């Protein structure tokens, strides 16, 4: 017998008396309802799907989604979905808004194939020298000839001109073509500007998805050639760039005007935006 039943028997008897007089109103409806819910839940626990059954859809769908993503990625990378800025062999025009250039209108840099009045045969000779200085292989030579053509020299066929495979390295800054006596000296002759605001820009271009790179070679008329498309990070290396730091935008388009891009640069780095 526990200690308390002897010592506190009278007290405990009162507790038991109270307990026996207890009245409980039991809601049988609730009891049955709760039982039903519990059993339904128990059934769910018993019939809980296995890991495979539970994640079957996901496990099946995941590789498919991944596959589609990979295919889409591959298509993007292979330019299937996104048209490149320009294709290999396309002719591009690059135009610079001369109002932003740090030169006044009179301080022109004479370039080959542009100003017949001021250049003439002697300048055509200078043009060839300049082309040689730029050292851009057949392309440069051809364009040099093209420029010369405007001065009455033989015309080259640009389409048949052999195209250098890669022109990625920065061009050396070249001394300007000797100026005719009628032309004022340039303050900073490190930039080549063709009248009609055409800028010669060697470099590497890509579209925003990074899929196409165009290597542009230096040409001495209002067009440039794309030598090759490749997969190089877009960074245009231009010896002219520091001089052109105030120029914000250059428009590039192919001859049909089909693909256009805007080149923007800042602090010597150039970004090509596709639109």
């Amino acid at each position, binding site marked *: 017998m526990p*200690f*308390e039943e002897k*010592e*506190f028997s*009278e*007290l*405990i008897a*009162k*507790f*038991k*008396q*109270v*307990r026996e*007089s*207890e*009245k*409980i*109103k*039991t*809601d049988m409806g*609730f*009891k049955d309802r*709760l*039982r039903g*819910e*519990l*059993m339904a*839940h*128990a*059934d769910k*626990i*018993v019939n809980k799907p296995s890991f495979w059954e539970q994640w079957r859809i996901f496990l099946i769908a995941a590789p498919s989604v991944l596959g589609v993503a990979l295919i889409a990625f591959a298509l993007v990378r292979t330019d299937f979905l996104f048209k490149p800025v320009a294709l290999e062999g396309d002719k591009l025009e690059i135009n610079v808004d001369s109002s932003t250039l740090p030169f006044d209108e009179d301080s022109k840099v004479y370039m080959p194939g542009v100003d017949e009045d001021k250049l003439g045969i002697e300048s055509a000779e200078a043009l060839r020298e300049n082309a040689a200085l730029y050292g851009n292989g057949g392309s440069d030579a051809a364009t040099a000839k093209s420029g010369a053509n405007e001065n009455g020299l033989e015309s080259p066929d640009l389409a048949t001109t052999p195209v250098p495979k890669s022109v990625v390295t920065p061009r050396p800054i070249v001394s300007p073509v000797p100026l005719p006596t009628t032309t004022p000296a340039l303050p900073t002759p490190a930039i080549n500007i063709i009248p009609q605001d055409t800028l010669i820009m060697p470099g590497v271009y890509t579209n925003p998805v990074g899929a196409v790179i165009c290597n542009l070679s230096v040409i001495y008329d209002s067009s440039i050639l794309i030598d090759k498309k490749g997969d190089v990070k877009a960074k245009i290396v231009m010896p002219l760039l520091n001089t052109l730091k105030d120029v914000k935008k250059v428009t590039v388009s192919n001859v049909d005007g089909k693909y256009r891009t805007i080149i923007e640069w800042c602090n010597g780095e150039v970004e090509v935006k596709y639109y």
Partner: protein
Amino acid sequence: MTIEEKEIIELAKEDPTKFGILYEKYYDAIYRFVLRRVSVREDAEEIVSQTFFAALHNIKKFNWMGFSFSAWLYKIAYNNVISFYRKNKDRKHVSIDEMFSLSDEKADVMVGYEKTEACDFVKDLFKDLSEEDREILRLKYFEDMSNIDIANILNITPNALGVKLYRVLKKSKGIMQNY
């Protein structure tokens, strides 16, 4: 705990649909236990429901650690009552007067005691005791639980419970003698 009950519990661990047997056996006791602490029927039903669902979910975790299965159920219910009052701070705990005067036919009143001399004494006695002392007496003499089970519910050692129980009985006896 009988061997049969142990077998049912082991069976329910494997097959939760067998939990129904345990539910039938302990529903009334748990319902009463909760009603004595939460007098509003809807609140009590909510707590009872939570208790049995928690038991169903966790029955696999139930181990024979010296206390009974009923003590395990009571402990879940007890913790749910505490949790209920924590969440619903605007709800007042059942006062001692309410606890012993619930025998009328109020709609929400589900538990009560006959108005006897013993009932009046216990009501007055409970007013002089601390909440913990009242809980020990209720678990011991109203729920008929063993010291081990009560110690498990209140998270104290059985020895500590024995000491507390002796003290509260001694105090109660003193009150009774002066009553």
